[in-house]
């Protein structure tokens, strides 16, 4: 470089050469702010999702909220109904934690009869991981003097859907917090600015963005998004409700569909694993469709309810191969094969698909999604 470079910038952006690394948007044709955008997991390394690539699920768009006017109300079965400004909340002790958030509807194409051919993140990328920081919810529940006999907390957002959900109060007291920060800076508007409820390890819809109201209650409110949606119909005709915990899942992000192996030789198989029940204990990888498995290396530190990066060297002979990964979490729960998951749940549950994913490598190094 013999010419002076670009000047300073107030807020850095990725290289223009990386503009293809982007969320993929799938929105309602009638209402642009209703839908999802997927994290391009296949293009990322490490465990932290850049804030601008964190997945989105909006029910009716991203509200623009003036932080100085926004208030949080806590009421219901409390001795003192209280409001808090965002400046007030910023003075409380901070809890910070690296956590994945995963939409209950992530990977739902897995229920389809034919394997969806898309890049890994555009099937499984309604999951992202970041450092969230804010106020422990137990502090605010104590300040409001919540009734010890109450069992639920109703949380509501300030978006145009005024989305509300019910969360067991025991979970709220145990480890939930109200995030003001994401990856060191204020939460991005599309991730809930200025305030988001964080429910570690539990399904994404509970992490209410643009949080404005918390109601301590004796029973769940039975909102649309915990009855008509985010419930899973079983073959018996009954449906699973309050399926909060995101079970262990893993996924090979490289090599994966859309990428191509250029000739035989050594490659590193890389992927992500996570569990809403705690830490990932192990990830096994198979390169022959599941006949033989080997333990992958886990990147330290392995954190509870966070993305865990795994890696394994692979010497590709140039012959067709099928790559799979299988996660086990610290409770001993093992990620199921697809056939076992479907035998248990049928194909019409839509939510909470966490089966083992298979990538087929052909002799040209092309990669496709297969069911095995």
């Amino acid at each position, binding site marked *: 470089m013999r010419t002076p470079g670009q000047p300073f910038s107030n807020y850095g952006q990725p290289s223009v050469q990386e503009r293809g690394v982007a969320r993929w948007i799938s929105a309602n044709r009638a209402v642009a702010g209703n839908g999802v955008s997927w994290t391009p997991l296949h293009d990322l390394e490490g465990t932290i999702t850049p804030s601008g690539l964190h997945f989105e699920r909006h029910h009716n768009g991203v509200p623009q909220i003036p932080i100085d006017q926004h208030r949080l109300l806590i009421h219901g079965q409390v001795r003192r109904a209280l409001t808090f400004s965002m400046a007030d909340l910023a003075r409380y002790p901070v809890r910070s934690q690296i956590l994945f958030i995963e939409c209950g509807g992530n990977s739902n194409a897995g229920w389809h009869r034919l394997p969806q051919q898309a890049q890994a993140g555009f099937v499984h990328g309604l999951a992202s991981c970041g450092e969230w920081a804010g106020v422990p919810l137990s*502090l605010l529940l104590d300040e409001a003097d919540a009734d010890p006999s109450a069992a639920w907390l109703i949380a509501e957002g300030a978006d145009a859907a005024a989305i509300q959900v019910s969360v067991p109060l025991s979970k709220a007291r145990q480890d939930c917090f109200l995030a003001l920060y994401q990856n060191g800076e204020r939460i991005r508007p599309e991730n809930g600015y200025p305030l988001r409820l964080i429910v570690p390890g539990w399904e994404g819809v509970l992490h209410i963005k643009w949080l404005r109201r918390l109601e301590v209650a004796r029973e769940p409110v039975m909102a649309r998004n915990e009855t008509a949606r985010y419930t899973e119909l079983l073959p018996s005709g009954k449906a699973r409700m309050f399926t909060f915990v995101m079970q262990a899942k893993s996924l090979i992000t490289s090599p994966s569909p859309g990428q191509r192996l250029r000739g035989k030789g050594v490659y590193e198989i890389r992927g992500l694993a996570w569990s809403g029940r705690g830490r990932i204990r192990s990830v096994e990888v198979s390169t022959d469709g599941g006949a033989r498995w080997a333990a992958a290396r886990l990147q330290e530190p392995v954190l509870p309810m966070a993305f865990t990066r795994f890696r394994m060297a692979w010497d590709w002979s140039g012959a067709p191969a099928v790559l799979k990964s299988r996660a086990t979490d610290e409770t001993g729960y093992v990620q199921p094969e697809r056939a076992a998951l479907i035998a248990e749940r049928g194909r019409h549950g839509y939510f909470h698909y966490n089966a083992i994913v298979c990538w087929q490598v052909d002799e040209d190094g092309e990669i496709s999604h297969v069911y095995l």
Partner: protein
Amino acid sequence: MARSRTFICEGGLALALALLVCGDARAGGAASAPQLGQPASAELVERWDLSVYPDGRGLPAGAGTAAQGQAIYQARCAKCHGSEGEGGSGGTLAGRGALTDDDPDQTVGNYWPYATTLFDFIRRAMPMDAPATLSDDEIYAVSAYVLYMNRIVGLDERLDAKSLPRIRMPNRDGFIGIDAELPKRQSTR
């Protein structure tokens, strides 16, 4: 030997410090928090509180019938949900097919456990292109019309804060609690 004593000593100190810090944090909730919450008036809570519970708590005054709701539905809802509730860019609302069918439509009629949820959801979120623009009477009427399309109420049945929670939805008992128990409730109709 000397080294291991030092280790024990440092370990003991670290443990003591840890206990101090934990003790402090536990002592309060209250003690370590600045307590900046402002009292919320009953009027503010009333204005902000949109929740409607299965027993009808939170339902406002007002009333409507399916006959009144038909025109409102066709004008404000049909564009996305179809003129007969068959769905479109919005979800399928009407239909009583068996949930054990292959690929069944999950509708208000065959899936939703509580009629109160309908009022709650319409009031807070519908119509999606202009949420919170229907009056309470209109919401009762549209709710009645959606239930009418599902053959759950009659055309002239009046729905209000008393009658809506008394409707027993066909799939009321169709759910299994996984990570939390379902509330136990008496059937009322």
